[in-house]
């Protein structure tokens, strides 16, 4: 689960990391009021959960209250990569001398947290990595030892920080690492950590991604979810425990198991069409979950055909078949469908579908070829 910039920065502040003064506004009038309180120039930043807000015109400077009002009105309501901006962060503007990147994530191969830092902050770290791998410092942290003071200090020296910033940096890094651990994050990131003209370090922009699996430990953080940022389908899928990712193709697919779901997408492509989504109903799904999954798929108007691919282990094929009928009874379905059912209670499932005259297939290859042909109206 991703947090907004303003949410992330507020959490950083709880861990003693300095952030610019500012507040969140949902109307241009509120934005103007915040600018008035702050005094001087402000930055108005759209709060949407995608990258590239700046390039899309979602981050702007305003010198006066009047200008703040005008710009906030422009930004609120605009669409950035399909997401409507419904709030802006109004921060006091700061003069920046230098920009540092610093983040914490999990190193999968070392199986422990790693601090990533670069003196070349202000751009995406992946971009820095592509240009010059040496500009990035990686510092693995013992899961149980934690970040030691001298490690933070040595990192500050390695970044070439001026001596009078060292202690500030050590405090910020320790705060950031503690925030990472205490919130069970999969990523925390300050970018840029600005060196200001008046010689302070300031977390000007920040990002936190939480580990969904650990949210049960953090009810306060779980509440920060911005359901406005999800589509109705995503929200519905999340609530019933379906993994769903919207794609751009025309073949909807419903599969049990993430690996098999990806393989199903790939095979659709292999036979010349494009998948409309990734959808994993998980293990042991009952009829009602199957029905929900099907309705999510069919809500996508681009979908021209649906492929259902179930390899029953814990999942029972007859339950899947029942769910399909349930969904078909409750909505008008105009697109063709092919169902491939194998494994536990395969025969019972096929019988149920045969009665409803739904086309079935035995192998995945056969199913994919059939559905591609149907989608193309061949």
């Amino acid at each position, binding site marked *: 689960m991703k947090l907004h910039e303003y949410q992330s920065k507020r959490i950083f502040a709880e861990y003693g990391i300095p952030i610019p003064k500012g507040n969140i506004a949902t109307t241009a009038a509120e934005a103007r009021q915040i600018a008035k309180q702050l005094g001087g120039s402000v930055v108005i930043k759209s709060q949407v959960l995608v990258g590239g807000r700046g390039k899309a015109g979602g981050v702007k400077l305003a010198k006066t209250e009047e200008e703040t009002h005008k710009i906030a009105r422009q930004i609120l309501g605009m669409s950035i990569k399909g997401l409507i901006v419904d709030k802006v962060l109004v921060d006091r503007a700061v003069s920046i001398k230098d920009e540092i990147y610093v983040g914490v994530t999990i190193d999968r191969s070392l199986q422990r947290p790693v601090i990533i830092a670069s003196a070349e902050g202000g751009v995406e770290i992946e971009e820095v990595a592509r240009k010059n791998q040496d500009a990035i410092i990686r510092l693995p942290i013992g899961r149980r030892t934690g970040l030691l003071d001298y490690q933070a200090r040595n990192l500050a020296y390695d970044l070439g920080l001026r001596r009078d910033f060292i202690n500030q940096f050590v405090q910020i890094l320790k705060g950031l690492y503690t925030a990472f651990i205490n919130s069970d994050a999969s990523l925390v990131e300050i970018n840029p950590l600005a060196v200001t003209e008046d010689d302070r370090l300031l977390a000007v922009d920040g990002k936190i991604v939480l580990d969904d699996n650990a949210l049960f430990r953090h009810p306060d953080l779980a509440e920060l979810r911005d359901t406005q940022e999800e589509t109705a389908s995503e929200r519905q899928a999340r609530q019933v425990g379906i993994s769903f990712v919207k794609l751009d193709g025309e073949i909807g697919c419903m599969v049990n198991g993430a*690996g098999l779901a990806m393989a199903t997408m790939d095979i659709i492509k292999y036979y010349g069409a494009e998948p409309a989504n990734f959808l994993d109903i998980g293990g042991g799904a009952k009829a009602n979950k199957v029905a929900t999954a099907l309705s999510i798929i069919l809500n996508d108007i681009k979908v021209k055909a649906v492929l259902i691919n179930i390899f029953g282990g814990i999942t029972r094929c007859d339950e899947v078949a029942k769910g399909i009928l349930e969904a078909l009874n409750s909505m008008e379905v105009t697109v063709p469908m092919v169902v491939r059912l194998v494994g536990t209670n395969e025969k019972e499932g096929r019988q149920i579908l045969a009665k409803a005259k739904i086309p079935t297939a035995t192998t995945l290859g056969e199913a994919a070829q059939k559905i591609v042909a149907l989608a193309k109206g061949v």
Partner: protein
Amino acid sequence: MGILVGKNSRLVVQGITGNEGKFHTLQMKQYGTNIVAGVTPGKGGDWVENIPVFDTVKEAVNIQEANTSIIFVPPRFAADAIMEAAQAGIGLIICITEGIPVLDMARVQSVLREVGTARLIGPNCPGVITPGESKIGIMPGHIHKPGSVGVVSRSGTLTYEIVQALTNKGIGQSTALGIGGDPIIGSNFIDILRLFEADLLTDQVVLIGEIGGQDEQRAAEFIATRMSKPVIAFIAGRTAPSGKRMGHAGAIIEGGEGTAEEKIKALEAAGVKVARLPEEVAELIAAMQT
């Protein structure tokens, strides 16, 4: 025999009294797995399918000489269950549970390194089966067939798909297992490839990978330099977009890294034949075995 599990496996089921635990205990028992104990704290003294239930893994080890554990406990207690098994002296721990927090697993791995005597498979995996001998997992037993192909996978149902394709062609498996779909897992491809390479009853190996991480790329390096047995691979997720988690917590292309192309390229460079379709895996193996 195969690797990891077999006739000598003496299994304790952690979380045996839960729904999933009970159901799969019966399934494994019917397959012929030697289940010697169950553990559920607070339920010691109970019986499930004529198997004695204990409060602690230590008792299962001391009294029933369990040497292998399978874990079905809910995600928030699963890390503790793994560490309990390891410190009780269990040698092989297979964790089925999905949804364990990543930082919990980081801690588990550091404890396992300290204990030094336990191998972990998973979490978030279907388990391990040595067909005809022992099934320690949730895979459908009947699709397997004893034979000489080792199968290792990050996936569950996709593994079943490929195993069934093998069996349909008359090709049996020495051992088939899933290593799990999480970012931090107990055993990676290399750990398992090393076992298959050393196993006398394994002739070919099937590696089923997916997007995310560097595990397949490292496996490719290992195959190129350390393996004599032929490896056939399949990589899921050629059409997966960047930055989106594909069901498994570990299946995500981040910062443009961990794509299917990257993995396929690395494997092919190591001399591995990479199938484009799941069924093709069986065809490639069949071609080798004739």
